[in-house]
């Protein structure tokens, strides 16, 4: 086994000649610092949010389309259709999607891109009443009417003045 001892001793001595105790401390310090930064990454924050339901038991998961925090809902003002029998982009049965709508942009944290999102209202049944979400990113006050989302778009649907039920968040393009 003497050849193995000699090999080990040789390699250890070679490492000792090349490196210093300070460099060991420096690399250990970098690893500790790197580990402490990990929870600040968006992925780690997203995973942490997934484990914590909100105070009222509603999901606060940014990846759940029925949660108000979902990235696509960044400019919405209304009841989420996903909680009302539809989805984030489709109307519940028995309602009709308004052709006239409010359009904004939202940042997708997963790919870092901005998307154009159309917030079409679903009309034809009384107000859903579940998952009210009012985030209003890029919304303007009513005195700048063309960029304000405070309107009831159902009043501009094919049937005049039909009831508002809920709102969708449809991706219509990439904001580039």
């Amino acid at each position, binding site marked *: 086994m003497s050849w193995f001892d000699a090999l080990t001793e040789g390699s250890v001595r070679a490492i000792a000649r090349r490196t210093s105790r300070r460099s060991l401390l420096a690399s250990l310090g970098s690893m500790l610092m790197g580990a402490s*930064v990990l929870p*600040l*990454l*968006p992925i780690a924050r997203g995973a942490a949010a997934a484990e914590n339901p909100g105070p009222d038991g509603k999901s606060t998961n940014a990846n759940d389309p029925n949660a108000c925090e979902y990235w696509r809902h960044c400019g919405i003002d209304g009841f989420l259709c996903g909680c009302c029998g539809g989805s984030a982009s489709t109307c519940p049965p028995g309602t009709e999607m308004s*052709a*006239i*709508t*409010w*359009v*904004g*942009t939202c*940042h997708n944290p997963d790919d870092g891109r*901005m998307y*154009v999102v*159309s917030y079409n209202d679903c009309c034809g049944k009384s107000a859903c009443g579940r998952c009210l979400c009012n985030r209003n990113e890029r919304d303007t006050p009513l005195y*700048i009417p*063309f*960029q304000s989302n405070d309107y009831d778009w159902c009043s*501009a649907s*094919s049937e005049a003045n039909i009831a508002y039920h809920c709102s969708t968040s449809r991706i*219509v*393009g*990439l*904001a*580039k």
Partner: protein
Amino acid sequence: MAKRRISVLILYAALTGIGGPWLCAMAAAFEPSVNYMLQCMGCHTPDGSGAAGRVPSIRSTLLPFSAVAAGRQFLVQVPGASQSTLSDAELADLLNWMIESLSNEPRAVVFKRFTGAEVASYRGKPLVEVGATRERLLNATGIEETNK
């Protein structure tokens, strides 16, 4: 060593997203097609055909209106265009894109392009009677409206 510290700081900012808002602010200007989506599409619908009885189609009117002086003024002065948050140059690019992309013309569209300076010269004057002005232009250019 100082250089390494700075690079570590930049890496830290990139990892934690501190630089995010600054980078987003730099990329705020959009292409004309995206500006159409953000400024016009909500009412005029994706292909410009509008909603019958409420929002008139722009597909048959864009090109003939752009051929006469009063029509060019109208296209800039309609409230949705003149009161948008776009700059004069961006509004000119958007109007040019709309005429090229949303017109009913089967062939390649030939028209006089809008410039930022031309848009600026019309934009400050408010258009009070939008509907009546549009009716006059329709009569003057002889357009049959398909989507009333």
